[in-house]
């Protein structure tokens, strides 16, 4: 179940969406979050669905693949739908079950809001699927640069993010090693009551934290002797280059937003 989970994963590829500048993708997702709210009846929602389907196609991914990977999230969304179905009142009564009623307004709002959330989940997943974490970190650093003038340590935050990302696989391996070592000593993690299982995690986390601190200390020394002194006077090896296609992508998105406003009732 977890291995097919797509949230936050990156799948390398060569599609046009992969090639877009990460800044363009990040801005687009933020814009899309606003644009989604422009739609207020079925034509708008239809256009939104069409748009997301085309982006998926352009990214070289299939909708079935996305749905399989996001199943867990969609199960959560069914709850949102049910809440609206039962709690939003108005319009004609469709079903009168005595202590509850389902009214047409509830059904319609439920469907619309669920579509909206599904589309948002898909579009953000498309971004993370087509952008490597380090590119995203770079994009965030570049886009947040103006915040430096109000003393936000943008460079330091980006550096921390990229080092954490780099350490995820290392710490995963370590966790596995510790679990094996503790199992060899007779610990069990998968049986017993919930409280028992949570307690069994303590002997995993303590050695994990210990080693993470040790790693952090060694890393700090290694960075220092390699001349790291923070942001001042530092140049960048990885550069992001904004191309025409990035501008075009943003213009297309804005035009799409305008179209949605136009069909709005």
């Amino acid at each position, binding site marked *: 179940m977890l291995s097919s989970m797509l949230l936050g994963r990156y799948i390398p590829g060569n599609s046009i969406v992969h090639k877009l500048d990460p800044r363009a993708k990040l801005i687009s997702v933020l814009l899309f979050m606003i644009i989604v709210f422009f739609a207020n009846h079925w034509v708008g929602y239809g256009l939104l669905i069409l748009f997301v389907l085309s982006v998926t196609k352009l990214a070289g991914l299939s909708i079935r693949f996305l749905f399989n990977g996001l199943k867990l999230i969609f199960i959560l969304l069914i709850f949102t739908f049910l809440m609206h179905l039962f709690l939003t009142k108005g319009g004609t009564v469709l079903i009168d079950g005595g202590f509850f009623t389902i009214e047409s307004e509830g059904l319609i709002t439920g469907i619309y809001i669920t579509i909206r959330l599904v589309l948002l989940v898909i579009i953000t997943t498309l971004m993370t699927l087509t952008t490597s974490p380090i590119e995203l970190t770079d994009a965030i650093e570049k886009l947040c640069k103006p915040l430096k003038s109000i003393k936000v340590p943008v460079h330091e935050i980006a550096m921390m993010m990229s080092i954490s990302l780099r350490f995820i*696989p290392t710490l995963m391996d370590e966790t596995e090693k510790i679990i094996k070592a503790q199992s060899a000593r007779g610990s069990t993690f998968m049986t017993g009551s919930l409280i028992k299982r949570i307690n069994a995690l303590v002997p995993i986390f303590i050695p994990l934290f210990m080693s993470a601190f040790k790693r952090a200390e060694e890393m700090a020394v*290694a960075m220092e002797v*390699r001349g790291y002194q923070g942001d001042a006077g530092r*140049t960048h090896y990885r550069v992001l280059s904004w191309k025409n296609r990035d501008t075009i992508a943003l213009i297309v998105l804005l035009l799409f937003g305008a179209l949605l406003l136009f069909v709005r009732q």
Partner: protein
Amino acid sequence: MITLNNIAFKYRDDEVYALDHISIRFNSGEWTSIIGHNGSGKSTLVKIIMGIIEEYEGDIYVDGELLNIESKQTLRRKFAIVFQNPDNQFVGATVEDDVAFGLENLGLDRAEMVKRTEHALGLVNMLDFRKHEPHRLSGGQKQRVAIAGALAMKPEVLILDEATSMLDPSGRKEVLSILSELHERLDTTILFITHDLTEIAESDKVIVMNNGQIVAEGSLEEVYKDKNLLLESNLKVPYTMEISDALLDGSYMTHEELVRRL
């Protein structure tokens, strides 16, 4: 090029000196190995040279210039160091990012960084792996990347602090053969710190440390003359020496020489 004069250092709350008034000279172009068991003071020595430990007694001169708080930043650029744990010194998200990390800190322009990164990766035969992420590399490959990162800084001295001790035998061999190639081809000055006597065959000069003191210093042959001293320093004498001792005259010889003589 590096001169240590009467260096002494005690860790806080410790009775004994971790380094007990030692003096050493490292010459440029030489491969110097410092060998000693755990706690002999060899890593403390590196920390002092790199300026990580600052409150020591004695003076250090680098190219005739005194190492102190003011000169630390500039003098430190003359050294590059590779540490023991391959994972904990890999800063970049990919191989090339990691090699470029030190260059970014120097504030070089991008064209120069690309040139130096490529060159350094070529020297350690890792150019094909430039886009790889660290978790897809073996320990030996990670250490080779670390060496490339060090070389890209164009240091005068390459310091390796137990850089092979966490590697498997094949990784160890990889790293050692890259180092001897660099030493032969480019005359790189190498300061190699280890506890394993089998790894120092290439050195021009060997320094044996025990309890914070230098107990022997000289060429391989000279150091091996006094085997009891090596044993007293808790070092494991390589098997070639034991065979030479039992069957031949007990002088230092490499594996090939031993085979030939036998």
